[in-house]
């Protein structure tokens, strides 16, 4: 199992788009390399032509300075290259298109919200099995069909190492296939500007080996609501108006489901590590961390109460 804090220290090298972790991203990466290197080569050719036009020997200059050269270099050459690229691009588009793939893919519905993500795992018939937020768990080596929707404005789902992005548009369900071939944590980010703290709307995908995934699934089925002072404070302070903790009276729907919040790796939609300290900081003043998010700062807790609530929440595994 990878370290729980890894997603916040990814480092950015190699660039995730060029460092695929699954077959869907990988075929695009191949294309990206060809395009980047081929584009670079064409740029060099054009610059060489420009150089010849300016500094070259008169013989070459004359050959460059006529309509025949313009047709050859400006039309025929790109026409040949682009025909090849277009055929490749169309073939790839078709093979990656989630509208045509069904099979044994695992199905998850993800709903974009300002500025976090609802995650609803579904069984093969599309029935909802369990709810989570801001974190997607998948088994390695198996395609996952994401059904992407939006609750408010347009968002866009993007995990560069697992596949391209797909918009989440109110009134529509878009489909995207992702797959990870190695266990690990893959960082994602909302790619469509959605107002306010759009910049801080991240999330993570956690890929497990099949056995680990089964274990994770099993751990999710019993609802470990816990009890005690933390829960009492949670219920009496208005948290329950927006958040659900199944097995307790807390059933608010505006914010993320917290039934298993303690097991999440991040807080605030993929931006903070999750531990009692960051949980307390988030509850007391999330606006200092993610300005503009929909959760108000809870200044009314005493230190002791704040600790009780955050200690309680991180036990919700």
């Amino acid at each position, binding site marked *: 199992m990878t370290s729980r804090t890894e997603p916040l220290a990814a480092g950015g090298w190699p660039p995730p788009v060029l460092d695929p972790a699954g077959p869907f991203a990988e075929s695009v990466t191949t294309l990206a390399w060809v395009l980047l290197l081929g584009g670079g080569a064409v740029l060099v050719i054009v610059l060489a032509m420009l150089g010849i036009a300016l500094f070259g020997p008169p013989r070459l200059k004359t050959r460059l300075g006529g309509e025949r050269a313009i047709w050859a270099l400006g*039309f025929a050459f790109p*026409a040949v290259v*682009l*025909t090849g690229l*277009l*055929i490749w691009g*169309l*073939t790839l*588009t*078709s093979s990656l298109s989630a509208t045509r793939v069904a099979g044994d893919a695992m199905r998850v519905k993800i709903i974009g919200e300002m500025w976090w993500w609802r995650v609803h795992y579904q069984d093969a018939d599309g029935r909802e099995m369990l709810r989570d937020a801001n974190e997607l768990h998948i088994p390695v080596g198996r395609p996952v069909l994401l059904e992407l929707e939006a609750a408010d404005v347009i968002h866009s789902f993007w995990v560069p190492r697992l596949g391209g992005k797909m918009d989440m548009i109110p009134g529509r369900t878009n489909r995207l296939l992702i797959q990870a071939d190695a266990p690990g944590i893959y960082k994602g980010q909302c790619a469509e500007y959605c107002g306010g703290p759009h910049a801080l709307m991240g999330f993570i995908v956690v890929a497990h080996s099949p056995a680990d995934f089964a274990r994770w699934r099993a751990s999710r089925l019993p609802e470990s609501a816990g009890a005690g002072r933390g829960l009492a404070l949670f219920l009496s302070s208005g948290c329950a108006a927006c958040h659900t903790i199944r097995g307790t009276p807390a059933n608010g729907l505006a914010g993320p489901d917290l039934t298993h919040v303690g097991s999440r790796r991040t807080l605030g939609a993929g931006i903070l590590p999750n531990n009692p300290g960051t949980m307390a900081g988030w509850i007391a003043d999330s606006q200092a961390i993610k300005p503009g998010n929909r959760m108000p700062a809870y200044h009314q807790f005493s230190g002791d109460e704040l600790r009780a609530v955050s200690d309680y929440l991180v036990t919700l595994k």
Partner: protein
Amino acid sequence: MRTWAILLGGLLVWAGHFFALYGIGEFAGESAASRGAVLLLTASGLAADAVLAWRLLPLSRAGEFMRWRARVALGGLALSALAIVWQALPALIG
């Protein structure tokens, strides 16, 4: 008007082809029938380009301006034919 029709002939054929294809994609969706329609439209677009080119070809016929007009038009027909073929590819490959 005639001059503009000649100058823009190929490009007008392109435009007709493209927007017909978009209309099929947007309003009829993907099916064997719409793929067939795309290919049919492509064949007629290419035929139209060929006819237009055929009518322009004796270049030396007339004065300076008309020769210029015909040569621009022929370039437009070449571009149009290539773009039309490209636009048919999604129906073959997609």
